[in-house]
């Protein structure tokens, strides 16, 4: 579903490496480094609240990138992404505060731990698919928080949850949003490169083949079940890493920190951004997180417009904004913002001719 890549006359690729290159022009390097530089320099010019919003956007983007590998590329719908964030968050918290591990060691281990749990809940994809698989992942979203609430109450502290220490790396404590940005941006760069390269190598092509027609994929020699499990594993690793970042950012975690509603939100971000594109998760996470942030600002205004609105109406804006935005996207822009961006680029190249 790619828009044809139109390039100016006289521009050729002479080697395979050139053909596969992501960055083709020097100015693209400049733009990329300016963007990354602007993110790293954020603490210099942004306020605490902006920095904290950026942190939340990045954490959401990382988990949606994982969901994109599973749902966008492999076509397996998952309502359990937030549950794997819970797993990652708890593992890292226990490793850092109980076992005294350094944060840098706990982060990947927590990600892998979440990945293993993801494998377990990916098992039903051996037998069922489509809507039935949605129900199996929903089971993960119900059972994992229950387990956290009820199992090992002396370690996991039941419904109360745990306090999470601020991460310490090389003696630097990341204890406030503006410092935390460095951590989030670094992890996001790594995760984006990994997801991007994965999507255009053998596993990525296998994922897409399974999504488009799993029978045909198997006839071509793609091990459908194996790759589905790998997609589940990867999605859960991304979720686990994002969960670690979120838990250490919030400094507290319990079974409700990442709930079913969050899983629904992540799917919504994926659709708003664009399924099966690498830009989509970042765009979608930015849009939806900013929108729900705007909802907390708009909420109190309700009482100015409707003075007799019932108590609790301020909390209605967040689900309302999200729900309406998601429905509008599904009806009018089902391919998401990433597709719109492709169209815009194509139109720019064709200018001044009409599309």
């Amino acid at each position, binding site marked *: 579903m790619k828009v044809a890549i139109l390039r100016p006359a006289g521009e050729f690729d002479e080697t395979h490496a050139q053909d596969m290159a992501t960055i083709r022009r020097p100015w693209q390097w400049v733009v990329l480094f300016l963007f990354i530089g602007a993110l790293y320099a954020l603490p210099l010019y942004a306020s605490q609240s902006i920095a904290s919003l950026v942190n939340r956007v990045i954490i959401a983007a990382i988990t949606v990138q994982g969901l994109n590998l599973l749902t966008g590329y492999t076509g397996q719908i998952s309502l359990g992404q937030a549950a794997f964030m819970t797993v990652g968050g708890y593992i890292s918290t226990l490793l850092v505060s109980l076992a005294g591990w350094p944060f840098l060691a706990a982060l990947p281990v927590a990600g892998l731990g979440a990945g293993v749990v993801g494998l377990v809940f990916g098992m039903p994809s051996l037998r069922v698919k489509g809507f*039935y698989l*949605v129900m199996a992942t929903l*089971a993960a979203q119900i059972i994992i928080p229950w387990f956290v609430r*009820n199992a090992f109450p002396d370690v996991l502290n039941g419904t109360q949850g745990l306090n999470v220490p601020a991460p310490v790396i090389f003696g630097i404590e990341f204890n406030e949003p503006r410092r935390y940005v460095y951590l989030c941006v670094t992890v996001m760069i790594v995760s984006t490169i990994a997801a991007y390269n994965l999507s255009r190598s053998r596993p990525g092509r296998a994922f897409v083949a399974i999504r488009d027609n799993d029978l045909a994929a198997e006839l071509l020699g793609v091990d459908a079940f194996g790759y589905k499990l790998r997609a589940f594993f990867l999605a859960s690793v991304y979720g686990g890493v994002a969960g670690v970042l979120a838990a250490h950012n919030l400094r507290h975690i319990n079974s409700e920190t990442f709930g079913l509603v969050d899983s629904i939100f992540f799917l919504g971000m994926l659709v708003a951004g664009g399924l099966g594109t690498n830009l989509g998760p970042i765009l979608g996470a930015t849009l939806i997180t900013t929108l729900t942030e705007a909802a907390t600002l708009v909420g109190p205004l309700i009482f100015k417009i409707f003075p007799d609105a019932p108590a609790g109406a301020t*909390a209605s804006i967040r689900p309302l904004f999200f729900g309406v935005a*998601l429905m509008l996207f599904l009806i009018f822009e089902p391919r998401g913002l990433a597709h719109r961006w492709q169209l815009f680029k194509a139109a720019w190249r064709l200018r001044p001719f009409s599309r």
Partner: protein
Amino acid sequence: MNWQLLPQFAVSGLLAGGPLALIALGIVLIFKSTYIFNFAQGQMLLLGATITWWFAVEQGLPLGLSILLALAASALLGLLIQRLALRPMTGQPLLSIVLMTLGLSQTLQGLTLLLFGGAQRNFPQIFESANPYKITTPFTTDGNPIVIILKQNLVWSFIAAILGVILIGAFFKFTRTGLAMRATSEDHETAQSVGLSIQRIFALSWALAGAVATIGGVLLATASGLDLSLSLVVLSAFPVVLLGGLESIAGAIAGGLIIGLSQGVVVVAKDPVIRGSAEIMPYIILLIVLLIRPQGIFGQKRIERV
């Protein structure tokens, strides 16, 4: 296990399964004709119960009239949902349709909050809550017969719910419209080719599902009060639908009773973790069903295997 408690909790569990069956029926109704699994059923139920509360308590109308008005309102809401949200999704992939009903669930949740707020409310009692029924069972402990105590409203909600399910089943079996709906569920194109307007039937299914959701919501609210968490009950109803079979009305009853019974029985255990597992029991059963018999007890065997 506290065996002497088993009859009590088994029977209460079964009774709680009645409303579950009714909620599951709402989902089955929509799935049967449109192949859409409605994740927003819980929010439709919440909105229906809240509208009933609004007519009955805020506006001071008699309860019977309020329920009728709420039924009409929720049927209208079902029509609107079908027309505005689901009709544009015809022919779209499963993911879009799943997400549409999920988006719908958030929208309806927000709408309920915006219009009525999220406070905990007392719902008018439909059935008498005093004078519970006492049934003496043939079992004994230490020579004393075990007596089951059943709240009247629990019993009557159960009877109302099961009656509702049977009524809808009869509607499907014996009326012309019901026949048309069954034909549509068989095959959309064939139904169209014999002159049925499938869009009208889709609309009718949504309207009917809206009304069924309202009845379920009222029955639950009258038993346990009305607040936002009412919409979460549907999380126990999803497994009911899969257990019974996605297209089966009889399956909704059987699934509701089995899930209700399982939730009642684990409460008898002495171990607090097993007792606490009542809330995830539906999902444990769901996973077992998916592994052993994905089409459910009465479902049609056309599930795609991988």
